[in-house]
């Protein structure tokens, strides 16, 4: 092909027209944040929000999820691998970028930086959260569902853990909502400035809603409504003496 032979000795190299695979990996990163990672995030918020209906509703929701067919396959290919890919490739993107929000302190540029920081915070939080909730302590598979509410409640007795939950939920919600905005902009769904503005508002509403749902869920565990849930709820019963439900 008769491309020009000019070589630029220093500075930013020119476009490697049609060469390489980064387009595929970068677009996959973008997509993986929506499906399956974002979809799982929504499922996770909804499932945990069952706690606002009390320990028994929570027990039943955990039981439903842990009794889905092919749970290990769903976990590995639906959650762990996509999440790890999204996070690690995300760090790769971050380190190659050159944040300049000090020189150009504008909203979009601030959000560009925030998207990287919220991603990192969410990743650290998710790592810790998965470690304490999935890989250590009472396993929630099978009859473990009966211990679920108590397990979360006990963890949240630690004020540092509670604070980390609030920070992690906020960061993940923000990252997901702005990720939707970025996805729509980059894939050419919201092309006009007007559509981007309105979709930006919608994404803000999504972020606020997710954070509110998260906080309401936390309140179900730490609030006065269901204090000191027993370590193991009865398997069948739907009320506990002394607890309003």
């Amino acid at each position, binding site marked *: 092909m008769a491309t020009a032979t000019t070589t*630029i000795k220093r500075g930013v190299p020119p476009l490697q027209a049609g060469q390489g695979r980064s387009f595929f990996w970068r677009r996959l990163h973008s997509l993986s944040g929506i499906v399956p990672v974002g979809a799982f995030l929504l499922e996770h918020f909804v499932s945990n929000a069952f706690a606002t209906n009390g320990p028994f509703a929570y027990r039943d929701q955990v039981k439903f999820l842990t009794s889905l067919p092919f749970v290990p396959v769903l976990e590995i290919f639906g959650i762990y691998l996509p999440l790890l890919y999204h996070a690690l490739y995300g760090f790769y993107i971050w380190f*190659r970028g050159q944040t300049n929000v000090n020189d*150009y302190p504008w909203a979009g540029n601030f959000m560009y930086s925030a998207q990287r920081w919220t991603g990192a915070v969410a990743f650290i939080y998710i790592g810790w959260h998965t470690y304490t909730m999935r890989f250590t302590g009472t396993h929630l598979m099978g009859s473990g569902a009966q211990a679920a509410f108590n397990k979360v409640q006990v963890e949240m007795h630690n004020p540092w853990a509670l604070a980390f939950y609030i920070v992690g939920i906020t960061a993940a919600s923000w990252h997901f909502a702005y990720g939707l905005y970025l996805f729509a902009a980059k894939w050419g769904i919201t092309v006009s400035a007007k559509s981007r503005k309105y979709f930006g508002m919608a994404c803000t509403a999504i972020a606020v809603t997710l954070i509110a749902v998260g906080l309401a869920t936390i309140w179900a565990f730490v609030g006065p409504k269901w204090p000191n849930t027993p370590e193991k709820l009865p398997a069948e019963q739907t009320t506990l003496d002394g607890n309003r439900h």
Partner: protein
Amino acid sequence: MAKTVVLKIKRQVNPDAEPRWEEFELTWKSGMNVISAMMEIAANPVTRSGQPTTPVAYDSNCLEEVCGSCAMLINGKARMACSALVDKLEQPVRVEPLSKFPLVRDLAVDRSVLFENLKRVKAWVPVDGTYDLGSGPRVYPTEQEEAYPMSRCISCCCCMEACPQFNESTGFVGAATIAQVRLFNQHPTGKALKHERLQALMGDGGIQECGFAQNCVEVCPKDIPLTKAISDTGREVMKQAFKDFFRG
């Protein structure tokens, strides 16, 4: 004493030399801009402390924000020096060369990467031939109106300088080139190379490197709807990728 203005200019005699700052104090004049101030420095190249120095080297030409030569960092932001009115700037006015392009001398940098990128995406209308092809297809006013803002690009490179993704490790092509792809893909004759331009933009350093920080559209002196062009081209590139994969 007459009102004065102070300029702090980053100087560098050659690409390998150490940069140094020089301060100049000039008598204020009505309507002064950064280029006219440097013209006055050239007429009397003496620093604020009375040291004789050399005139500042910089690119400039039209002095009316249409040639794209005089882009530099003024008070930290990429913009055209000719339209940077001193009265509207915070003093001392800090003037630096664009930071992401190889330095030639003082404020002059080598921006040939943009020209190279434009060549790589074939940002032209293919009409060369051995015989007269006659007049081109008609472009309707509605299309003209959409194309015109993008045709105003002056290749100043401000959008690239301000972009957090435009750097040596990403090799990002930058907003200007993507907008030119959008422009020439819309042209009824330019369309002939549409798929080649879109395929070029899928390469390493292509459109995928955009992080949508939206600085480009903020700094663009010609108000080109760059984010819109990137979004629109992003969709076209994606469509082309699917076509290439499924249809071959």
